[in-house]
C-alpha cells in the first residue's frame, strides 16, 4: 500500500461510533434486548415502504433512490418482540436506563447534555426499520477525548434505536429479524479533527474504552460499529459504514485516501480528454446470438441489453482505485443498487463469453471511437434501463471528481458504494414521543477501565496482566459485584478469566452459565459451603443443567456438607494408613499425604483447611 503524505493531501477524517447498550429493555418498548436465532421466530409478516416528505417539504435523495426499487420486506418476530417493533403500536417513552447510560458517557467525554432532547425520525426506507424511520435523539454536544496526536473533539452524542438485522437478501426484497430492532444504540460523532490513519484508530480505541467503562454496553460481534468519514483537499466527504473491527480503521482511511487520489487523477485525465457520457440506449441486437452466460440468461428470460458510450474513458474504466477495485467496479456498484448483477465494460472485454466481434459491433452501435469506452447491462427490461442510467450518472460524476457518497466497508479494508450521502432533510420530529429534559446532575460518573486496571492491582493485588484482562473483559461487572459481596478478588478474577475458558476448552457449554449462577457459586465459596477445588465440577454441572440452582448442583456433585470433623476423620485415616512414613519423614511427608487426603475428599473440602488439619495431625505424630 502506498504511504501518502496525509498533511499535504489535506486529510480530514472523523468517526461515528455506534455501540449497543446492554439495558434491560429496548429504547421504546418493554421487550428484552436479547438476540435470537432466525429459526426461533414465531411469526412473520411482510411490508412495503413509501418515502414521505420531511417537515421542510423535501424528500431525501437517499430515500428517493431507495424507493425506486419496489421491494418487499419480510420480518421475523419472536416471543421476545412486541407490536412496537412491528410498527403496529405507538412507541412508549424513551427508556430511562438508556438515557442514564448515555449521560454517563457524556460525562466521560466532557460533553454538555442538552436542555431538552427531541426524538427525531431519521428516514430509512431500506426496510431495516419497520416504521421507515429510525428514532434518534441528540442528547449531548461538544466534548473532547485525548490521543497521542492531540485532542479530538466530540461533536455530538445521539441515543437511537438499533435497526433490524438483515438475514437474507432476495431478488425482490430483504428478510429482516426484529430481535435487534429497538435495542438502545449510542452514536458518538467526532469533529473532523483526525489527520492520520493511526490517529483514527487510536481515537476509536479510546472511545471504545470509555463506552465499556460504563459496564452497560453489549459485547461481541456486531455490537459496536464504526463509521469513518474521510475527505482530502479537492476530494469529497465520503462516509464509510459498518467497519466491524478496530484493526481495520487505519486501513480503511488509507484505502479511501488512495481511492480519492486515483479518482482525482482520473478526473484530470478525463477533463484533458474532454470526456463526456452519451445517452444510454438499447443494444440488444448486438448480442442476439451471444454465448455469454450472463447476457444469454437475461435475453432468454425476456430481458434486454442496454449500453452507454463513455466518450474519452478508454483505459480509465479499468483503472484500479483500491486493491482489485476499479472505476468499473464503481459503475457496477451503482448498477447493482438497481437490481442488476453488475456491468461489463470495454476495458475488460472481450471476456465473460463476450466475443471480440460483439465488442466491435457494440462500439459501432453506440458510435464509440477508439478513445471511448462502453458500459453495458444485461437484465430484465426495467432493471436494464435503471441500471445503465445509474452507471452513466456515476461515469459523469467521474469527470467532476470524487462524488460525495455513503460507502460500505468490505472485509479486506476496501469499500463499496452504498447510497448518496443522507441530507438533513431525512429527519422530522417523532410526534409519538414527548421531548424529555435529561438531568445529568444525578448521574454517577463511572470509573474508567484504565483506572480500574490500576485499582485492581493496588487494591486487590492482581498482577497487571490479569487486572487488564478482567477490567476489559466481558465479565467485569460480574467481577465487581462478586468482590463487593465479599468474595476473594484473586479467586473471582481466576474464575471469570481462566476457569470459564478452561471449561470451554473442555467442551463444557459455558454459554449457558449466566451471571446470577456464577455469582451464586462464588457466594457458596465465600461462605465456605463449597471448596474452591469443587468449583469446576459444579460449573460444568450447571452448564449442562442450567435449570439447577447453584446449591442443587453442589448437592448433585456430592460436594456439599463436608464439616471440619469429616475433614479431620479423612485426614486421620490417611495419616494412620501412612503411619511409618510420618514417623520417619515428619513434615517432609506432607506434600505426598496432602494429595492423598484431597483425593479422599474428592474436592469437597477446601485445600487450605485440609492442609492445616494435615499439618496438625503430622505434628502430633512426628
Amino acid at each position, binding site marked *: 500500500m502506498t504511504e501518502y503524505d496525509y498533511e499535504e493531501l489535506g486529510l480530514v477524517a472523523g468517526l461515528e461510533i455506534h455501540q449497543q447498550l446492554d439495558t434491560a429493555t429496548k429504547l421504546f418498548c418493554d421487550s428484552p434486548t436479547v438476540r435470537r436465532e432466525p429459526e426461533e421466530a414465531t411469526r412473520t*409478516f*411482510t*411490508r*412495503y*415502504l*413509501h*418515502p*414521505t*416528505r420531511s*417537515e*421542510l*417539504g423535501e424528500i431525501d435523495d437517499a*430515500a428517493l433512490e431507495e424507493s425506486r426499487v419496489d421491494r*418487499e420486506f419480510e420480518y421475523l418476530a419472536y416471543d421476545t418482540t412486541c*407490536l412496537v417493533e*412491528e*410498527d*403496529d*403500536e*405507538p412507541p412508549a417513552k424513551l427508556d430511562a436506563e438508556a438515557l442514564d447510560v448515555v449521560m454517563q458517557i457524556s460525562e466521560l467525554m466532557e460533553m*454538555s447534555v*442538552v*436542555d*431538552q*432532547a*427531541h426524538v*427525531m*425520525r*431519521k*428516514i430509512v*426506507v431500506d426496510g431495516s426499520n*419497520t*416504521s*421507515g*424511520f429510525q428514532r*434518534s*435523539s*441528540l442528547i449531548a*454536544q*461538544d466534548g473532547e477525548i485525548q490521543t497521542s496526536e492531540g485532542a479530538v473533539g466530540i461533536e*455530538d452524542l*445521539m441515543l437511537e434505536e438499533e435497526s433490524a438485522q438483515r438475514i437474507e437478501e432476495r431478488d425482490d426484497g430483504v428478510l429482516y429479524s426484529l430481535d435487534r430492532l429497538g435495542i438502545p444504540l449510542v452514536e458518538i460523532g467526532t469533529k473532523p479533527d483526525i489527520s492520520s490513519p493511526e490517529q483514527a484508530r487510536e481515537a476509536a480505541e479510546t472511545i471504545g474504552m470509555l463506552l465499556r467503562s460504563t459496564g452497560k454496553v453489549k459485547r461481541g460481534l456486531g455490537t459496536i460499529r464504526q463509521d469513518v468519514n474521510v475527505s482530502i483537499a479537492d476530494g469529497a466527504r465520503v462516509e464509510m459504514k459498518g467497519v466491524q473491527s478496530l484493526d481495520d480503521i487505519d486501513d480503511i482511511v488509507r484505502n479511501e485516501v488512495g481511492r480519492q487520489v486515483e479518482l482525482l487523477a482520473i478526473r484530470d485525465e478525463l477533463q484533458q480528454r474532454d470526456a463526456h457520457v452519451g445517452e444510454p440506449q438499447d443494444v440488444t441486437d448486438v448480442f442476439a446470438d451471444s454465448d455469454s452466460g450472463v447476457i444469454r440468461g437475461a435475453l432468454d428470460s425476456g430481458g434486454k441489453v442496454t449500453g452507454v458510450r463513455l466518450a474519452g474513458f478508454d483505459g480509465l474504466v479499468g483503472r484500479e482505485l483500491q486493491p482489485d477495485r476499479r472505476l468499473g467496479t464503481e459503475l457496477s456498484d451503482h448498477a447493482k443498487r438497481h437490481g442488476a448483477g453488475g456491468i461489463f465494460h470495454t476495458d475488460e472485454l472481450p471476456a465473460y463469453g463476450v466475443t471480440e466481434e460483439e465488442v466491435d459491433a457494440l462500439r459501432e452501435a453506440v458510435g464509440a471511437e477508439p478513445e471511448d469506452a462502453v458500459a453495458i447491462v444485461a437484465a430484465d427490461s426495467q432493471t436494464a434501463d435503471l441500471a445503465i442510467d445509474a452507471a452513466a450518472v456515476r461515469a459523469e460524476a467521474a469527470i467532476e471528481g470524487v462524488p460525495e457518497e455513503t460507502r460500505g466497508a468490505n472485509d479486506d479494508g476496501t469499500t463499496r458504494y452504498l447510497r448518496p450521502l443522507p*441530507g*438533513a*432533510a*431525512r*429527519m*422530522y*420530529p417523532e*410526534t409519538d414521543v414527548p*421531548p424529555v*429534559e435529561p438531568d445529568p446532575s444525578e448521574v454517577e460518573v463511572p470509573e474508567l477501565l484504565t483506572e480500574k486496571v490500576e485499582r485492581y492491582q493496588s487494591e486487590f493485588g492482581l498482577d497487571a496482566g490479569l487486572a487488564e484482562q478482567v477490567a476489559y473483559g466481558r465479565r467485569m461487572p460480574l467481577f465487581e459485584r462478586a468482590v463487593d459481596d465479599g468474595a476473594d478478588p484473586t479467586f473471582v478474577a481466576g474464575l471469570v478469566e481462566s476457569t470459564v475458558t478452561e471449561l470451554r476448552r473442555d467442551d463444557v457449554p459455558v454459554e449457558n452459565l449466566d451471571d446470577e449462577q456464577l455469582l451464586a457459586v462464588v457466594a457458596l465459596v465465600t461462605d465456605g459451603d463449597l471448596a474452591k477445588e469443587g468449583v469446576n465440577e459444579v460449573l460444568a454441572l450447571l452448564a449442562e443443567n442450567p435449570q439447577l440452582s447453584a446449591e442443587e448442583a453442589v448437592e448433585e456433585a456430592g460436594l456439599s456438607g463436608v464439616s471440619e470433623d469429616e475433614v479431620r476423620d479423612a485426614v486421620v485415616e490417611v495419616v494412620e494408613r501412612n503411619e511409618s512414613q510420618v514417623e520417619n519423614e515428619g513434615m517432609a511427608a506432607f506434600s505426598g499425604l496432602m494429595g492423598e487426603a484431597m483425593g479422599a475428599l474428592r474436592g469437597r473440602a477446601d485445600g487450605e483447611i485440609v492442609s492445616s488439619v494435615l499439618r496438625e495431625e503430622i505434628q502430633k505424630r512426628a
Partner: protein
Amino acid sequence: MNAGDRIRVERGGVTNEGVLMPSTTADHLVVKLDGGYNVGIEREDAEIDVLETDVYDVGETQSDEGESSEIEFDDDLPTISLISTGGTIASTVDYRTGAVTAQFDAEDVLRAVPDLAGRANYRGRVVANILSENMTPDVWRDLAQAVYEEIDAGADGVVVMHGTDTMQFSASALSFMLDTPVPIVFTGSQRSADRPSSDNVMNAVCAVEAAKSDAAEVMVCMHGTESDDVCALHRGTRVRKNHTSRRDAFETVGAKPLGEVDYDAEEVTFRRDHAERGAVELDLAADIDGEVELVKFTPGMDPAALDYLDGKSGVVIEGTGLGHVHTDLIPRVEELVDDGTTVVMTSQCISGRVCDRVYDTGRDLLDAGVVEAGDTLPGTAKVKLMWALSNLGDPADAMGRNLVGELQEESKPWT
C-alpha cells in the same frame, strides 16, 4: 424572531445554529440543527442572534406548492369519487402542536398516494376535515348527501377517506341512508400517513379497486392482516375496530369478511352474496333522530345513570351475556318503554345473538317491552335506531329484522 428564521443560540458555553421551529414554547426554543436534529434550548440565559429571516416556510406543506394537480381524463377508466372527511389517511404532522392532524383535500391524497394514478379517473371532494372522534350525525347526513350527489353525477364508485375511530358508525349510517347502485368503500389508516410504513397507500389502492368492483355495498376496506398483502372488505354494518393500533384492527363480527382485495394481484374477490352493481335505483333517506343513546350495563352501575335517558326517542342497551341488566334496573327500563322510548337490547359479548327467553331476567326484560336486536352490533344498533325512528313506521319491529345486512338471520361465524 419567528419560526423559520435561522438563528444562533449560545447557552452554557454551547453554540448552536439552525432553523427555529414552530414547536418552540415559552420555556424552550426548538432549533433544527444543520444535521437535521431538533434540540430544545432553555430560553433563560440564552443569547440569541437572528442570522436570516424566513429561511423556511415551516408551517406549509407541499399542498401549497405549485405542482399541477390537473388530472387527465381517460375514457377507458371508471370514475371514482374520492371523498375526504379527514383522519389519519390524509393527515400530516402539525408542527405547531406536534400532533398528527388532517390537512389534505382529496387531490392532495392523489398527490400523496401516486400509486392511485392510472387506476381510475378521480373526482375529489371534501365533506369535512375532522378527526373521526369528532364525527357527528350531522356530518353523516352531509356525507350521505355528498355521496348521493357524486353517484348521481356519474361516479362508478365512491371511496370515503375517514378516520378509523368511528369509521364503523359512519359506514353503518350510510348503509341505512342510501340505496346504492355502486360500491361505497370506506378506508383509512391506522398508522399515520407521515411515516413510510403507513398503511394508507395500500388501503387507498385496495379501496379504489373495491370501488371498481361489482359489489354495490357500503364496505370498509382495511388491512386484512399485519402484512401488506391483502385488504379485507367488511360489510359496513358488521364491522368493528377491534384493536387500538394494529393495521388489521377491523374485523367482521360473526362471519368472515365479505371479500378481499389482493394488493399485488389487484384482484377483488367475494366470499358471499352481495348486492350487484346497478341492482337498485339510487335513493337517499338521510333523516336521522339524534335522541338515541347507547348505554353499557356493568356491575355496580348507579341506577341514576338511567335517569338522563328520560325523554329520549330510543335507547340501545349493551347488556351482559345473552342480553341482561341487573334485575333491579328492569322497572326503570319498563318506565322508559311506557314513556314511549324504544329500548333495544344488544350484547357486550360482541359476538353472538341476544336471547332473552333463556333466563328469568331476560323474560322480565321482554315483558318490560325491550326489543331484541338479534346479533346486531351495539354501535350499529344505535345508528339503525336513529335512522329507523326517523324513516320507518314501526322502528321497534325493524330493530328485530334485517334491513341491510346488519342482522344475520343465521349464526354461521365460519362462513
